């Protein structure tokens, strides 16, 4: 996109990116959702992918964790191109990444402790006593000490998210993905989840990729942000850079301006390039 505000290179360093996305196209059948998305995530940084409903941010996250296959382009994680991985290589890679889903996705038939223990039981040869200790440690890290025997249905929304984070952290992943960590939570609980992400980053130096549309949360936790709109990247930059951006689409999103009536595709393209029609003020 000609007018794209892309500050990733300016921010770049000699350090190899933990995640590199190059010209990524993803489609559901005939309908293309992501139209050539490219950006890097450096090791140890927190990148927030922002965007409204239907912007393609959840599809992007699902593609990054291998739940959707791109139609073209490359996703390189830990030096490996996801599009060319064998099943065994995928299994190996998935042991190094953790995902916290929007709904928590805890297994309802298992206790919280069993949920957290599951990846350890399956992917390590640790004895049950060690696994039990590790489960306690992980739950302690997310502030859920003593909840091992609770069933997910007995937890509140915020606690479910914390338990999901503990499970995602079980294998000590290098990269953590979060899908809408604050969705459906009240502001106080949501702030608690933000603090938890900051704590994890500080304590373990994990690379964190978060998909959200919650601006307050995004500005608090992000080192850099990626703004997606209708499957295109509109802007990539630090929080300060995005705040200072004059790009109309960035301003519309950050200033929470309602969408104008758009009937023609050409109107939308004109708006993206900063020409008429302007969003309603």
């Amino acid at each position, binding site marked *: 996109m000609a007018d794209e505000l892309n500050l990733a290179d300016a921010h770049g360093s000699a350090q190899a990116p933990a995640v590199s996305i190059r010209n990524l196209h993803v489609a559901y059948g005939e309908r293309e959702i992501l139209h050539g998305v490219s950006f890097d995530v450096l090791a140890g940084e927190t990148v927030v992918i922002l965007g409204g409903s239907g912007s393609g941010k959840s599809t992007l996250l699902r593609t990054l964790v291998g739940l959707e296959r791109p139609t073209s382009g490359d996703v390189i994680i830990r030096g490996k191109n996801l599009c060319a991985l064998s099943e065994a290589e995928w299994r190996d890679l998935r042991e190094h990444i953790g995902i916290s889903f929007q709904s928590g996705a805890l297994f309802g038939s298992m206790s919280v402790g069993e949920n957290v223990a*599951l990846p350890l039981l399956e992917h390590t040869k640790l004895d049950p006593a060690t696994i039990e200790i590790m489960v306690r440690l992980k739950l302690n890290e997310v502030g859920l000490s003593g909840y091992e025997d609770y069933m997910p249905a007995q937890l509140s929304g915020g606690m479910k998210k914390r338990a999901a984070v503990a499970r995602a952290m079980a294998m000590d992943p290098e990269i953590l993905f979060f899908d809408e960590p604050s969705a459906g939570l009240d502001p106080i609980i949501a702030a608690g989840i933000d603090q938890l992400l900051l704590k994890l980053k500080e304590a373990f130096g994990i690379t964190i990729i978060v998909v959200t549309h919650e601006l307050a949360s995004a500005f608090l936790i992000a080192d850099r942000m990626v703004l997606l709109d209708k499957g295109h990247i509109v802007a990539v930059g630090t929080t300060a850079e995005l705040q200072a951006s004059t790009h109309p689409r960035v301003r519309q999103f950050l200033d929470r301006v309602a969408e104008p009536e758009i009937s023609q595709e050409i109107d939308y393209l004109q708006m993206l390039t900063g020409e008429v029609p302007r969003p309603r003020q």
Partner: protein
Amino acid sequence: MAFTENIGAATLDGLAYVGGLARLGFSAAQAVVKDVVERRTLAYGRAIHQAMAVGIGSLPILSLITFFIGTILALQSAYELRKFGALQYVADAVAISVSRELGPLITAILVIGRSGSSFAAELGTMKVNEEIDALETMALDPVRFLVAPKMLAMLLMMPCLTIWADFMGFVGGSVFGVAAAGFTFTTYMRATLDALVMRDIITGLIKSVMFGLVITTVGCQEGLRTGLGAEEVGRSTTAAVVKSIFLVIMVDLVFTAMFYFGIG
């Protein structure tokens, strides 16, 4: 033209569906074998849990239904037999019908209602709640983790339930035998055993295993194919029940014909 095209398209869809079931069944069997080879115990624990749900949970209602079916069969058989003065053959008629056909079929239909639907609803809800995605992203195969234990449980429990259903059918028939056909309970059961040959029981058990395979694969496939939203879970559950009943009847027809023309 459109009519023939529709028939062709429906046939292709049906074959693709059955192909999908076969692939799912094969993957689940492969997962079970792999667990045995690698001496992993997770699937067994879940299989025992499932076996309890499928088997023990079904026993009261299965007992009641097959008991009444046995009595009904005795009444219906007696209606014709008494015309020929052959009321003493009522035990034979009930024994053959129950062991070869109605025992396995009624068991299957009951298990479809209880377990096939619950497999679809469970997996469908897990799909909607992103739990299936979570399994995949944790490098855990959903087929191994979710389908294989169900299949193992079903293959174990269906023959057991069928044997129990057969027995309760015989007991149900004996009520009529004792009340109206001049039997005592002991003589009725002895007549039942005399009427049966091992082949009758075995054909019923082979059918029950095949029915178990159909119920598990259809229930799980429908669950795993659930779309987004709670409404889709309901659709999957209904589809699992309807398709399972249809396929169980088809499998029954094929095996009954095979036993009749081939094995006896």
